[in-house]
């Protein structure tokens, strides 16, 4: 399993899956996709990596312990829900900022809702990886 080609291929696959997962995350508000689907894809990428190169290397590539990533994701979603406090709205009220909005076009939307979905992404990826890595290392 440790052939150089496979490892390089795995790296490439991980990169593609990660990019694709972020793409799914970002488009989710308007077409099928979203944080959960994105996070799952991201996790699948690292699982493939772990299977081909070993969990130790996958952990290294991930840089942070996956369980921490999960909790940070939870924190991010929580924070996105808290932002509206500053604006005097109810918790989890979406706050939107439209960059370059014109009459016809709403421009590039930045919102707490997106941060929320990023949190979902991180949680899903982190939690699954925490479980899978630990399961792999259990043997």
């Amino acid at each position: 399993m440790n052939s150089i080609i496979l490892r390089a291929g795995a790296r490439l696959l991980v990169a593609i899956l990660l990019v694709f997962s972020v793409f799914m995350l970002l488009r989710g508000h308007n077409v099928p996709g979203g944080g959960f689907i994105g996070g799952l894809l991201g996790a699948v990428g690292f699982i493939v990596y772990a299977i081909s190169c070993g969990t130790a290397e996958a952990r290294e590539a991930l840089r942070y312990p996956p369980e921490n990533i999960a909790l940070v994701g939870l924190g991010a979603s929580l924070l996105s829900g808290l932002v509206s406090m500053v604006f005097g709205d109810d918790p989890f009220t979406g706050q939107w900022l439209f960059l370059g909005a014109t009459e016809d076009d709403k421009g590039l939307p930045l919102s707490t809702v997106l941060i929320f979905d990023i949190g979902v992404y991180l949680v899903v990826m982190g939690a699954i990886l925490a479980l899978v890595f630990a399961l792999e290392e259990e043997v």
Partner: protein
Amino acid sequence: MKSDAAHEAPAKAGQVLSGWLSVAIAAGLFAGFWQALGPVGGGEVLRWSRDWVPSAGISLSFLIDGLSLTFALLITGIGALVMLYSTKYLAGHPHFARFFLYLTLFMASMLGLVLADNLITLFVFWELTSITSYLLIGFTHTSAASRRSALQALLVTGAGGLALLAGMILLGDAAGTYELSEIRLMGDAIREHGLYLPILILFLIGAFTKSAQIPFHFWLPNAMAAPTPVSAYLHSATMVKAGVYLMARIHPTLAETDVWLWTLTIAGASTAVFASFMALKQTDLKQVLAYTTLMALGTLTLFLAADVGYAITAAMTFLIVHSLYKAALFLIAGIIDHETGTREVSKLGGLARFMPVTTAAAALAALSMAGFPPFLGFIGKELKYAGALAVQSEPFLVASAVLLANALMLAVAGVVAFKPFWRGQSATPMTPHEAPWRMLAGPVILAALGALLGIMPDLIAVPLVEPGVKAISNAELQPAELKLWAGVNLPLILSGITIAGGVALYLVHERLRDWLQSAGERAPSFDKGWDSLIDQFKAGAAWQTRVLQSGVMRRYVYTIFATLLIAVGGTLVWTGAFGGIPTVPFADLQMKHWAVVALIIAGAAVTTVTNSRIAAITGLGAVGIGVALIFIIFGAPDVAITQLLVETLVVVLFAVAALRLPLMKPEDGFPNRKLDALIATTIGLIVTAILVTVTDGPIDRRLSDFFESASWTEAFGRNIVNVILVDFRALDTFGEIAVVAVAGVAAWALLKGGKEASK
């Protein structure tokens, strides 16, 4: 050990302080109640009240009348003497301070009980006396017998307490108030109330258990496991009289009916006679005294049955008489035990030489107990006969019972207060010598009071007995006069017979005892019955628990599904809610629908029947994909993608895990599987029936309509499902990711944790 010795010295100082503090509290309270003698003797009733739980009609109200004052003085007066006695009796005991804490708490509870004018407040103190007596009976906690006795007393009185609580609640509802001084005015209404009989029964269970009437008597002799001062105080002079107090207190409300009259008469008389014989049977001084206490309690119950002046006066007087001599005798028994090392009657004799003061006190107390003139006991006995002859039930029977009990009592008095001191000296474990003054003060004072009050009965007649009688009965009863010489009358003649009979019994008591003991072995014992009751209870509990909480998971799952089946299926049948067998729209079914249905059913079937892990996983995958296809067909792409991804992960994880798990065993061997299949199929049918019925007809789509209209215009998203997830119902999603995050962490911790533990 050195350090222990080092801080023993200051601890001892603290202990001494705790002892004297308790004595001071009791004495101070006694002095306080003494002040009330004047007003109460003048016919006043003192009342103090303050709200406690007004919304439930409960107030902290207290009342001092003749009845409660009598009790209060006995409680605090005897309490002070007992505590003084205990400072010496328990000197150096490691739990000295705890003892005084319990004793003081008990005294306070008992005072609260007799002073309370609110039923529930009374009950609160009632239970407190049970708790404190539990701690006191089990004071010698390292002994298994003590612990058993403590539990027995607590459970018996506790059971009675619970009955009493129910009775009080019913009485409160019937009367519309918990205030005793209001309830006592409603006697007639209560007696005619539909709940009268339940109320009466529940009250009497409470009173009989606390005052150890047959058949609830067996805990009292066992309670003698407590240190002797406790026996003297709780189990003769005060707590056991709480039941008597209750009957006296509730007398105006519940008495004057045949049920009351006969129940109390029979219970009291049989307790008195039975206890007198049992007393004669014992050889342990404390046991002898315990049974005479039972006898006294029976007698008091007997007299409270009636509603005539003589009987009630007899009860009030005998209450005081008994408290005085019985506390004295118990304390003397304690002295004997303390100074000689034994309480066995047969081993004791000739103590008069060594302990003259104790002997004198014992003699005085015993003479009062035996009912010789000029002691208060004599007056008490005369009143008892007068009362017995005046009762409405069966004067002859009652008088006979009282006569028999009194004669036996006289014999017992000889056994406890004559024999140990006079007859030939026997060897005792310790060389006897006179007790210190703190232990003598109690018996001497109490015994002397018995004599003093006999000569001057007016000291208690006016301030205590007469107001007490008035408090017990709402009818205009004339309290009988307390006097030594009432002329030659029937009671006096009966007294003569008593003395003659008693002396005769004393002379033959040893043979009688042997006979009673051999008879007792054949008779069923309540105490042994208790043990088998507890054993049966435990065995029943264990059996039930083995059946229900079997430890076998399959049975748990089984029970839950069976419950579901019966509850939901039963309700479905009961309500007739099933909308009828629907028509399947075969016409609309296309090839793809059939394919999906077939895929799912086949997958589920394979998963269910296979013994191969690979086949099972494949089956699961088929079901998952089939469900995803349903989502796609019916316009749910997000759900379908998620389902596919999740299903992939499920199958992968399952495969990874299953490879490390053992093979699945064939299940053909289990006959139960047929029943399982039946249950499973029925539940499946029920689910289908319900689903078909609830989805018949259109749904109220106002929620979805709102989402459709607001999704883009207000929440700026074109994927309505995603907008619901991250905006409209973001809190759900937040909870959902919390579940995922925690599931990951928990699984990680489970896997990692085991590793660290095994290292």
